[in-house]
């Protein structure tokens, strides 16, 4: 395995870049559907810049990560090991999961929390094709009226919302762009 992709591509100035990225990640979850920019990471293919930046910002040795088949490569594993130290685990044990939507299926495998601790749930970092054209309308907390969005599927997010306050949360990434789709968001087909 060439170490070039593995050992490079972390934050150049970790405290500042991680703080900026964390702010953007919070903003994305607080305002579902609104595009935020996440930059700083230069991860190996097929990780997007946004997904790589999220991993650097949110993951460490205490956050088990699941890699969907689309992203389970030696380079990605090595990059996560060096930059985050996060263990790579099966879907059921994951705090975070990364991959294309089809590769993450079935999403019912992921943790949705418990009645006492709804926060003990997975966050899915989904690589998508693009943010347009919209195929869904989002409403709910953090959205004033409604917000259009391009989602890889509708039904799964409706089912996820139905289990609120349990459920998984999602980041949808393309390049350096990200939108948040928390479990609280109501999704309707456009």
């Amino acid at each position, binding site marked *: 395995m060439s*170490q070039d992709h593995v*050992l*490079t591509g*972390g934050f150049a100035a*970790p405290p500042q870049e991680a703080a900026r990225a964390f702010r953007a990640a919070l903003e994305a979850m607080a305002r579902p559907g609104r595009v935020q920019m996440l930059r700083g990471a230069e991860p190996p293919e097929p990780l997007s810049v946004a997904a790589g930046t999220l991993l650097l910002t949110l993951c460490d040795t205490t956050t088990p990560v699941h890699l969907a088949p689309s992203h389970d490569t030696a380079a990605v594993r090595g990059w996560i090991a*060096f*930059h985050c130290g996060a263990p790579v685990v099966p879907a059921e044990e994951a705090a975070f999961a990364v991959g294309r939507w089809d590769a993450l299926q079935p999403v019912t495998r992921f943790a949705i929390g418990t009645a006492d601790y709804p926060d003990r749930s997975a966050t899915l970092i989904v690589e998508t094709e693009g943010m347009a054209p919209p195929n869904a309308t989002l409403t709910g907390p953090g959205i004033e009226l409604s917000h259009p969005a391009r989602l890889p599927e509708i039904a799964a997010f409706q089912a996820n919302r139905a289990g609120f306050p349990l459920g998984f949360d999602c980041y949808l990434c393309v390049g350096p762009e990200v939108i948040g789709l928390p479990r609280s968001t109501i999704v309707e087909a456009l």
Partner: protein
Amino acid sequence: MTEPLSPDQAARRDRMGILARAEAAALAALMPPAPAHRMLRAPEVGAVMVRGRAGATGAPFNLGEMSVTRCSLRLETGEVGHSYVQGRDKDHARNAALIDALAQRPEGAEIERIVLRPLAEAEAARAQARAEKAAATRVEFFTLVRGEDQ
């Protein structure tokens, strides 16, 4: 770990241990001129949770953290050096990573002789000094023998 370490890995494990336990000033005094290199992970201060075992050999438990500084860099010639050293001294971590990388070069034996061996000897001398003081406080029990039929 299931697989035994290769000779290179075992040498690296020993080397990184010596560098981590060395006194920062002692390492700095032994450093050769730093070769051209690029940081992969600039010296970063963090913590490691130290674990013990209940009853010394039973279930693991968390004892408390220790401060650790780590660094990774790549020499212009391609060798990658890693370090994890106790404390918060960034120079210590960078020097340790440089030595780890230099030891992989053809002149590694020289690094072993001028840096690693003196550090290991200094550490052994510190341990010996404590062991000698401890030995002086070892209790020598003697039994009083009574009676005349010796």
